[in-house]
């Protein structure tokens, strides 16, 4: 028993300390916070207002205006940016000696993965939460239950995206490479997640791509979570339960694969 508790603390202590380091680092770099929140907010406001008039939903969902439709997508973009910024530091950590000094410590490799991903997820969650007070302003009514639900969904999305970022960054040589992946893969992933336009609106082949995109389910879960308290029908074609299961599975998978990859890495 005593053995088990020591084992547990030798796992949780490094995990927590690695996670805390992510938070301290992020909040010491003010420009990052502005970048991560600012650009999605500008996107939201400009695209939302600009397209607002010309955007028509198919069917009966015309009670939702575009600014409102785009809202969950904007939150997911903030999460995406934050998790990218926190995982990109893996590349810097490796170039400098920081990661090496963690790797020679007597801790399990999975606590390194978990600490890093958890840190990024908590950050992304915190950044996303800043947006929530805007919901009532654009007419989304929330109660305690829907807020709690939304927080859970936000955390799962954050965990999945940070895990994905971790996987990409771990084998990446340079931050430039990461930026290329971001533009060619991560941003399209977001564009085709139902953040900008509903799946049902898209052309045939695009629908397939969007249905295969795990992030679509995250955006759906978030949107439906935001309307949990109200009677508004959202323009989604999957159920909340399906959306939740896919999102959680994706988060779990990225974490497990990351752990395997880190364990396999022979540094040197």
């Amino acid at each position, binding site marked *: 028993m005593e053995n088990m508790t020591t084992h547990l603390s030798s796992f949780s*202590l490094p995990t927590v300390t690695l996670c805390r380091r992510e938070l301290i680092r992020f909040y010491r770099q003010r420009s990052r916070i502005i970048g991560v929140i600012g650009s999605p907010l500008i996107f939201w406001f400009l695209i939302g207002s600009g397209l607002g008039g010309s955007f028509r939903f198919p069917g009966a969902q015309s009670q939702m205006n575009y600014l409102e439709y785009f809202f969950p997508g904007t939150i997911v973009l903030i999460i995406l940016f934050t998790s990218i910024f926190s995982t990109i530091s893996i590349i810097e950590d490796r170039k400098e000696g920081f990661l090496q000094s963690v790797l020679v410590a007597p801790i399990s490799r999975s606590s390194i993965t978990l600490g890093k991903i958890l840190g990024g997820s908590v950050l992304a969650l915190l950044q996303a939460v800043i947006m929530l007070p805007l919901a009532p302003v654009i007419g989304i009514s929330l109660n305690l239950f829907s807020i709690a639900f939304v927080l859970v969904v936000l955390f799962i999305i954050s965990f999945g995206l940070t895990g994905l970022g971790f996987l990409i960054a771990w084998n990446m040589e340079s931050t430039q490479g990461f930026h290329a992946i971001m533009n060619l893969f991560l941003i399209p992933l977001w564009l085709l997640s139902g953040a900008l336009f509903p799946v049902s609106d898209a052309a045939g082949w695009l629908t397939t791509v969007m249905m295969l995109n795990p992030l679509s389910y995250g955006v759906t879960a978030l949107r439906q979570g935001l309307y949990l308290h109200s009677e508004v029908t959202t323009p989604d074609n999957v159920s909340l339960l399906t959306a939740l299961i896919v999102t959680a599975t994706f988060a779990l998978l990225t974490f497990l694969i990351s752990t395997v990859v880190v364990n396999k890495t022979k540094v040197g």
Partner: protein
Amino acid sequence: MLHLETAGRITPNSHHTVRMDSGISIEGLTHSYPTTRQRTTARIALSNVSFQIQSGEIFCLLGPNGSGKSTLFRILSTLLTPSEGSVRIFDLDLFQERQLIRHHIGVVFQHPSVDKKLTVRENLFHQGHLYNLRGSVLKRRIDEMLMKVGIQDRAYDLVETLSGGMRRRVELAKALLHKPRLLILDEPSTGLDPGARREFIEYLHSLRDTDRVTVLLTTHILDEAEKCDRLAILDQGSLVALGTPHDLKHEIGGDIISVSSQEPSKLAEVIRTRFRSNLRVVDGMIRIEQTKGHEFIPQLIREFPGQIESVTLSKPTLEDVFIHRTGHKFQSGKS
């Protein structure tokens, strides 16, 4: 330096699994990096290297770039598993009991491992948590280490505001926080000016004296190797010399005479036939290892008037040891 010789033979505490007095033993270490897309043949970084480091020694791995010392460093710091060979650290098998050994070693990397965005204290707290230190024990250790490396007044400053020498001290405090019995340092004086370098190596000596920490460091700087108790010289993956700086230099016997000439190889040949000297031509200079060099030089000049441009006489240095053993110059690049 005699007290070191006995340091390794203090009565072993045999009921303990970790025997601090047993030092480090490296046996038949061979490593080759696998083929990659860029390189179709495997690169041999270490070939059959064996030597021992005694407990309480300051031991230096000296070698030019590409000599294999960095590979050896990575193996000893538990980051790399070699293709062949065995390493025992304090009587523990490095490859079987990696996790246990990690508790007993402190590593200072060539690249800074401190987080610049964190304060000195935060860095040390983080490090302590990785070694399962916490609470008041950790706080006490941190205060102790800050005092020891002399940066207590900068404890609450961000590392990025510290000078290079100060950052090195934070690195050292970090590596020593969990009281390791073996301290491994990779090119510790990179980026330090000669003054700071001397101070750093003196600090390692005092550390060894007070805490009986065994110190292993890699370097390509000859002066630094000179200040260690013993050293191993590596060249192209092989061990070419092993011993105290004094013994290694002594082995050359006498003095080093360097002769420059218009036609070095031709002159070298005639000197060789005339005096049967131990000589070789290195980098266009004739290099003669000679006992009583001061008596030899007048003979040399009398014998070959006009053919000699200049003659210098010097005591052997570690560079001479290197040339003596390998037949080529020590390419340190930027020493």
